[in-house]
């Protein structure tokens, strides 16, 4: 039987624009190319600007995880200015990042992932669903559709909680360098406690059981969509006056080996990306032959790595499952529950008082790297400044790691590896199966396609 090349595009229900080309032979996928088809170039936009623009401007990389970029840019500036973070600022920042993460995970599960497994009503925006492999009883299905619509208000409540402190979202305002500009007053704390208790109930009573129901009905997906099993996390929810202590540990997990990540071992590759090297600068080149993505390939110690909730949960020993599409979904839902409990705890630990912020006037360093885990995995920002002006700004996003295209060693990234070797049970099942695997990574192509490297590798230690 001959090989068949199929373009799966657009891959809907995700953030940004994604096209995936696969080669099918004898009902199996023998090759996959995952291509982000959107370029914006925030790094180029940051060049020449005042470094304190970074928190607000880099949030504009992404709509669904804006505070992820705000957080890492905040840490980066804390390092450049050598700030001391008050304890209330540490709690507030983590509460805000957690709220954005909850919003992200809940929306990913219900709005993006659920229609892969649940028959949605035959009305816009659910027309032509073509779910050929539907396995839920009518009653269970109806309940999950109902939860889809209930989740609307719950994910909104996560953002409302964030806004009580952050002023607005996406692209909040109060989490800046040196702390948080808003006072954690008693009324705000109790308002947020009411909101998080509502979110917590929903997660416990709907999201977790819904995940378990889908995981049991589609349990074969615990064996589908696996990657080579290399996981990386920079640690999440940072505490300490210098952001030095992540609550959830960082780690590089390869097989049973767990080690501490070192940013100097990160490298990037543009073999399959629409970029060329010109005078030491990487510039976009949308007609480059054989390239298929604006995402660059990212490696750690020469290998591609998977990141995200599953990586964090495995590295921290919170989850003992395997490595598959369903494990990714399962770990994300378990993490969602854990985070709601953390937010309740942190809100109770906040001490009502004035805005916990102390900004120094001038930066004391010229270069810094900040990296931490956010919703989708490890996010890194680095900056070189002269005076207060940006000379070079760099961003490496979790989606770039997960959606790495083939590098110069023809090594595939985690998503391409997960797709390759997949068996497609019938001709009408192609989109369904591929879609389930791809979405289990929670793709965010808006983030993934910003990588525009000035030159050189990361040097020096991380600022926290």
């Amino acid at each position, binding site marked *: 039987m001959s090989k068949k090349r199929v373009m799966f595009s657009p891959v809907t229900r995700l953030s940004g624009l994604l096209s995936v080309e696969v080669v099918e032979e004898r009902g199996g996928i023998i090759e996959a190319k995952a291509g982000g088809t959107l370029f914006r170039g925030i790094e180029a936009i940051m060049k020449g600007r005042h470094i304190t623009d970074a928190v607000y401007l880099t949030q504009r990389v992404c709509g669904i995880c804006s505070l992820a970029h705000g957080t890492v840019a905040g840490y980066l500036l804390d390092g450049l200015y050598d700030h001391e973070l008050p304890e209330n600022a540490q709690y507030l920042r983590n509460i805000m990042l957690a709220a954005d993460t909850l919003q992200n995970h809940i929306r990913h599960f219900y709005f993006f992932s659920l229609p892969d497994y649940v028959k949605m009503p035959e009305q*816009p925006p659910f027309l032509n669903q073509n779910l050929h492999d539907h396995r839920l009883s009518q009653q269970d299905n109806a309940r999950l559709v109902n939860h889809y619509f209930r989740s609307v208000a719950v994910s909104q409540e996560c953002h409302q909680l964030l806004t009580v402190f952050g002023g607005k979202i996406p692209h909040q305002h109060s989490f800046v360098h040196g702390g948080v500009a808003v006072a954690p007053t008693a009324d705000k704390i109790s308002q947020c406690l009411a909101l998080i208790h509502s979110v917590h109930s929903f997660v416990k009573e709907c999201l977790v059981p819904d995940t378990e129901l889908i995981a049991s009905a589609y349990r074969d997906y615990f064996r589908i969509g696996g990657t080579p099993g290399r996981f990386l996390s920079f640690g999440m929810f940072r505490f300490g006056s210098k952001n030095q202590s992540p609550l959830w540990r960082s780690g590089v997990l390869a097989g049973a080996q767990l080690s501490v990540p070192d940013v100097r071992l990160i490298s990037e590759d543009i073999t399959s990306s629409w970029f060329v090297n010109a005078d030491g600068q990487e510039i976009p080149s949308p007609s480059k032959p054989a390239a298929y993505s604006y995402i660059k390939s990212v490696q750690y110690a020469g290998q591609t790595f998977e990141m995200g909730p599953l990586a964090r949960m495995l590295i921290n020993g919170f989850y003992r499952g395997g490595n598959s599409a369903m494990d990714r979904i399962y770990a994300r839902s378990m993490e969602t529950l854990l985070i709601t409990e953390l937010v309740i705890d942190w809100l109770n630990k906040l001490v009502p008082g004035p805005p916990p912020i102390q900004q120094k006037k001038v930066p004391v360093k010229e270069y810094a790297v900040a990296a931490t885990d956010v919703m989708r995995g490890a996010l890194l920002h680095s900056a070189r400044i002269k005076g207060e002006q940006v000379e070079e700004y760099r961003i490496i996003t979790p989606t770039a790691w997960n959606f790495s295209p083939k590098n110069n060693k023809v090594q595939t990234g985690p998503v391409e590896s997960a797709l390759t070797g997949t068996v497609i049970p019938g001709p009408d099942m192609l989109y369904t199966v591929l879609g389930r695997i791809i979405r289990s990574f929670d793709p965010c192509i808006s983030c993934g396609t910003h990588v525009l490297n000035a030159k050189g590798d990361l040097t020096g230690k991380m600022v926290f």
Partner: protein
Amino acid sequence: MQKEEFNYRCRELSAGLDFQLTKYVLDTVQEHRKSKSAGKLPVIWIETSDSGDNNIAFMNTTYPYLGQVLSGLIDLLYSNTFMAAQGKDALNILEQAATELRGKFTLVVEGAVPLKDNGLYTVIARTENYSLTARDVLTWLGPLAKYVVALGTCASFGGVSAARPNVAGSVGVRDVLKREVINVSGCPVNPDWFVGTLAHLLLFGAPELDSLNRPALFYGFTVHRHCQRRSYFDQGHFAEKLGDLECMFSLGCVGPRTGADCPYRQWINHVNWPVRANTPCIGCTNEDFPDGSSPFFTPLPEKNPPPHEEQPAASKGGAKGE
């Protein structure tokens, strides 16, 4: 309900701590559809070059909530974010809707449109043979739509996607289509502005627009005019640092030249807004955002003019009054 009353409700309700816009908007829409035997507003939503923040903002709509908007107000036929269909099935829906609802659908564009290198910096979908760029889709659907709504500042004016040095040569929708484009700017949009505009289109057609083609209903006055800290400005009391309670003109606030109703409408179920969070307004609804607002924490008279950008086509105004 008459147009004037509808506009009044949109304007006033969120200020009154009586957030029953749902009752007014959805009930009015139901009445309208019944009396005119009209359907919902058919919408084709195309995401182009932006961060996807406007669809997240849309998910945050309250009174009416997202589910109510989808069931009672619009038929969201094509949307990369929400639609269940994928791959060619999704493209088929797009082609079918564009043909069958020609002259009837509302085209919502979320993001700027890159023009450089044949627009290849934003590809909406690929087939085995060609890439369908944002520009291709807009030039195809733009003339077929009844209304075109540019959602967010990137779609309206280029926004962050077109910020200097604008590597991809991105522009707002108005620079691609030779027709009226309703700009609902904001980075992101406040969902009330967007949902209110959709309801207005269904009930009364295009709303009254300001000089930047934005619904005057929402953008007609400056942030400065209604700011809770206005009295500090008038008396010359300025904040020295973030977290202070005085006027933040000294810390870079762009409120005096930004048309938006944030001070009274506020964000995410109307609970807060940037100035109340002790930070400056950065003028995200403006035609020259972000370059005209940058550096964000530098006072307005000292901000850098864009070094090598062309001057905006329309005048800088657009909002009435101080």
